């Protein structure tokens, strides 16, 4: 069959077979090998960078000891979500302990955002005396809680409940 082909066609066929063989060798051997070498060299570069980073850390002087932040000033929690839940529980307990009705208490992001702050939107209602006791207890107790913005409205009619809409904010950190 091959003998019936022209000399040019036979040479073209031989070169095509050679090309296919080379392509097979490249795809089956060269490309995976190059990938393997690349991965190993990249891993070596990563390890070297890590070693350099640690050597730099080791070379720098120890930081001066700083005064720790008083632990009673912030909520002790493992993360922001747990801290926000603690703040919400704190507010609810203080409100209910002073005879207030908690109409709403939802966790929210502080404004401006700060990874060490948690916030809660609250709406409370109740008598004036209870409201004052609640605020004194919340803002005067531990941890430090402040109302970043708030509106306190007197009742329209005498003897009615006061209403407080506020955003309460507190700091949080891991327990030491």
């Amino acid at each position, binding site marked *: 069959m*091959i*003998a*019936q082909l022209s000399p040019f066609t*036979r*040479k073209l*066929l*031989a*070169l095509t*077979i*050679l090309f296919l063989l080379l392509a097979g060798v490249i795809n089956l051997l060269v490309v995976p*090998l*190059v990938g*393997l*070498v690349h991965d*190993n*060299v990249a*891993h*070596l570069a990563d*390890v*070297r960078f*890590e*070693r350099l980073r*640690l*050597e730099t*850390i*080791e070379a720098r002087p*120890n*930081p001066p000891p*700083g*005064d*720790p*932040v008083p632990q009673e*000033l*912030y909520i002790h929690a493992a993360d922001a979500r747990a801290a926000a839940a603690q703040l919400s529980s704190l507010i609810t307990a203080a409100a209910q302990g002073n005879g207030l009705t908690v109409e709403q208490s939802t966790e929210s992001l502080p*404004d401006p955002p*700060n*990874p*060490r702050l948690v916030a809660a939107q609250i709406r409370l209602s109740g008598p004036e005396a209870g409201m*004052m006791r609640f*605020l*004194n207890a*919340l*803002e*005067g107790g531990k941890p*430090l809680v*402040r*109302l*970043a*913005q*708030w*509106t*306190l*409205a*007197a009742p329209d009619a005498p003897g009615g409940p006061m209403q407080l809409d*506020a955003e309460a*904010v507190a*700091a949080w*950190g*891991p327990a*030491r």
Partner: protein
Amino acid sequence: MPSLSEAVQSNLAGMIKDAWHWWVDELRNILPRDSLVHFAQSARTDVWLTRTGVEVEHVAGGIGRRFANDVPLEAFEDKDWEQLAELMRGSRVRVILQPPRVYATQVRLPAAARTRLRHAVALQLQEFSPLEPDRVDWAVGRPKIDGGQLAVDVLLAKRSDLDGLQALFEGLELPCQICGLAGEDLIPLRSVRDPAQWRFQIPRNWLIVAGLLASIPFTTLAGAAALGWSNAAEVKTLQEQVEPKLALERDLHGNEALRAALAPLTKISAASMLLDDLAARLPHAAYVKAVRYQRDGTTELDLVAPDPDIVAGALELDPLLPNLTQVGQTPARDNGIALSYRASR
């Protein structure tokens, strides 16, 4: 009589062999003749075995020299072999047989036989071989087209003669190619050592270079693995050493972040403090309707009182209501006046 499976296997092996020879020949014909060998090594030594002795033609660096010895190769003494080996070393060596030690003839074949040249010649070997075919080694030269047919030079030599020569050169560890003269062409008959080995022995430096190049990925791999292992061990040791310092730094950073978070909280006035302050300052007749504290520190106050002047006097010096301004005043029920104030930092 061979079995059917043996016949099929034999036929298949023959087809594969033919295909291989066809492919290699086609590729070889594409390249200029002996280009690779000449490119790799230019020194050449031709050892002509004549009727009376040996003639050696040595060409190196474009300079040719001829030597002659009246003694047949088989009768060489040690000093003759040393001289010959000196010439052969580092060059492409061909040991060339001439008639009557070889017999050359030309066979004409159909052009279609080009791809199965050896088979076609083998079929006719019996007709032109001066000896029994199983006692000769034979080789074909490059076919030429002549009048629509293939003209092929066929060279035959006694197998025992070639065996003796091969054993002689192998014993002396002198690689070479044993050729025969057919007309003006030299046709390779046998190679001392493997033909492929002979072929690639000449470009040895090239083989070394190719081997070194091929070893680069593997040496890189091995080097990267060794260095990576060594660095990883150092990293582990360093991690243990710097961990107390990192813990201390994390502690400090945590404290700084907490201080930064607590700082704005301490600047916010406590709502209870402002309400207590208002209760203490405002006259009893005044009635606070609403207090609003904005994020920017602005405080808005809505109240109802019978006398605005008394209220203004009570609040204007309040440090918790800086920059206090009255922003509204309207009549209210029960002879009161609704007042609105705004204090801003």
